[in-house]
């Protein structure tokens, strides 16, 4: 922190007390006073760990002996090992299956809730309920809903002639099951962000389009969505990051299985560190995760900007 104190301009002799007070009351000193704890904590929790993690990713570290430098060996392991390669693929697949559909649904719900009608607040609260429920509670409920014998999902699918599925233990359905829970849990939060964005769209523009004969669907596609682009970008990026972080559901519902079909990167980080005590490998995996978050964020910025131009 570079904090330059404003030296008091000494025009007439001042007592020591006055000079001290002036120093104490200077903007730089108050800023130092107010920032030292929050910034100190953030350095410990957010900034130093990035660099230490980078260092650890080049070492072999098994917790009970000091880290030993091994160069790129951990990264080689990440990209050559079948399980970790699959985890990178699964992370992407999870995001691709959840984010576009989940974002679109949240946008549609927000658009429908943007009108003034009776019961609006009640609907908004109902859609928000899954967000305030914890990942553990959601996982417990859905574990029961996915149950092959007494589960609610198979019960409903029975009406349209689909035979019972073993959702969480079927290699082809496990990731899809997690995607369903994720979308269910995300609509409310993204909807709130979209609602805020929709409020900022000038009503005159929509009215003008209406007068010109554009129907509701055309207005939504040709006016609302283009004007909402920055908000959509924000939702896509934060939603993507949150799917990357989705550890709880995997831990509680599939444990990375069956046949490693749900072992996303965050799951492999957890396994390498807390199950196998290979901290260097875990660090390399989390650096890969960080780079993926970074690239995806930049890509989404690009895509949105190009479409706008």
């Amino acid at each position, binding site marked *: *922190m570079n*904090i*330059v104190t404003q030296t008091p301009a000494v025009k007439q002799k001042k007592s020591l007390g006055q000079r001290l*007070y002036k120093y104490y*009351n200077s*903007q*730089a000193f*108050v800023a130092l006073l*107010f*920032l030292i*704890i*929050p910034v100190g904590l953030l350095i*410990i*929790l*957010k900034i*130093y*760990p*990035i660099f*230490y*993690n980078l260092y*650890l990713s080049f070492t072999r570290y098994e917790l009970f002996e000091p880290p030993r430098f091994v160069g790129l060996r951990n990264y080689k392991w990440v990209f050559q090992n079948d399980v970790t390669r699959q985890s990178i693929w699964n992370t992407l697949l999870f995001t691709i299956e959840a984010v576009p559909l989940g974002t679109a649904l949240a946008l549609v*719900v927000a658009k429908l809730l943007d*009108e003034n*009608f009776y019961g609006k607040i009640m609907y908004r*609260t*109902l*859609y928000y*309920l*899954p967000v*305030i*429920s*914890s*990942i*553990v*509670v959601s*996982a*417990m*409920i859905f574990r*029961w*809903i996915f149950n092959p*014998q*007494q589960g609610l999902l198979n*019960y409903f699918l029975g009406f349209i002639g689909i035979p019972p599925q073993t959702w969480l233990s079927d290699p082809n359905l496990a990731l899809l099951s997690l995607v369903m829970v994720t979308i*269910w849990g995300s*609509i409310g939060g993204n909807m709130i962000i979209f609602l805020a964005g929709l409020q900022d769209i000038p009503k005159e523009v929509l009215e003008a389009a209406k*007068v010109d004969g554009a129907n*509701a669907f055309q207005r939504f596609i040709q006016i609302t969505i283009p004007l909402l682009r920055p908000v959509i970008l924000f939702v896509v990026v934060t939603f993507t990051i949150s799917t*990357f*972080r989705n550890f*709880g559901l995997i*831990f509680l519902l599939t444990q990375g299985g069956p046949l490693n079909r749900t072992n996303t990167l*965050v799951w492999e*980080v957890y396994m390498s*560190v807390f199950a196998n005590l290979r*901290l260097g490998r*875990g660090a390399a995996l*989390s650096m890969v995760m*960080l780079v993926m*978050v970074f690239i995806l*964020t930049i890509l989404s910025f690009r895509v949105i900007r190009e479409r706008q131009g």
Partner: protein
Amino acid sequence: MAVQGSNANPVVRNFPKILTYIVLTLGAFVMVLPFIWMLLTSVKIDSEIFGDSLKWLPSQFDFQNYSNAFTQTNMGRLFANTVFVTAVSVFSQVILGSMAGYAFARLHFKGKNILFFSLLATMMVPFEVLIIPVFLFVRAFPLAGGNNLLGQGGTGLFNTYAGLIFPNLISVFSIFLFRQFYLRFPHEIEEAAIVDGCSRAGVFWRILLPNSRPVMATMALFAFLWSWNDFLWPLVVVKKDALKTLQLGLSLFNQEQGTQWAELMAASTMAVVPVIILYLVLQGFLTKGAVTSGID
């Protein structure tokens, strides 16, 4: 919808509105059904849960599941732990966030923008990515848990309340939220107070902080949800039963009990209902706060 309103039939005229209602209601049903199913299951007896055909409503309400779940998970302890950890986290995030937010919004010092935007950039870094160094730091915390000054020899804050709370003491989001709020706060009041001889720190404590109730409520709600619902960090930092949080206890209950669905749903209900109540209460406060968010 009024422009096309030349049609006299009210059903046809109101068709878009009716369609909106139908779609929204179907969607809301999907959102809420899992919770209803949780509640219904939690009061059923086993024979109704494992019957051949699915029964929606229980023939009798069996609240035994709740007391069983409460004693088996030691829920009183889980609750107390979670309330304590959450209360400290919320308080700390609100106070530290408002202090830093004030400094970034109202004070001038060299390197302010660089510092602020580098902190903001860390918001993009998921906590899960940094869990190894944070875990190692907590475990090597100096002079705690048998550690020496260099953090060697013991387990540091591992398996302690302090370790549970530590990563939740601060959030960049809180700093950002308070900064945005203080940027819009009228300068005149602050200047008048300084002319009247109030110190800068006094301006913050006596004028800005008491007037930031709406943003405090918003932040408190977020911090509450994060801390109350946190799962990964408690999972890795706490191994002692006495320190376990509600989410951790709930997740383990499942493993031990296997297919005790009624009791599992009862435990889930007990874990989620306080959050829903608090949300509804704070939501009322938030909507009120938005109306009166000016200066008293």
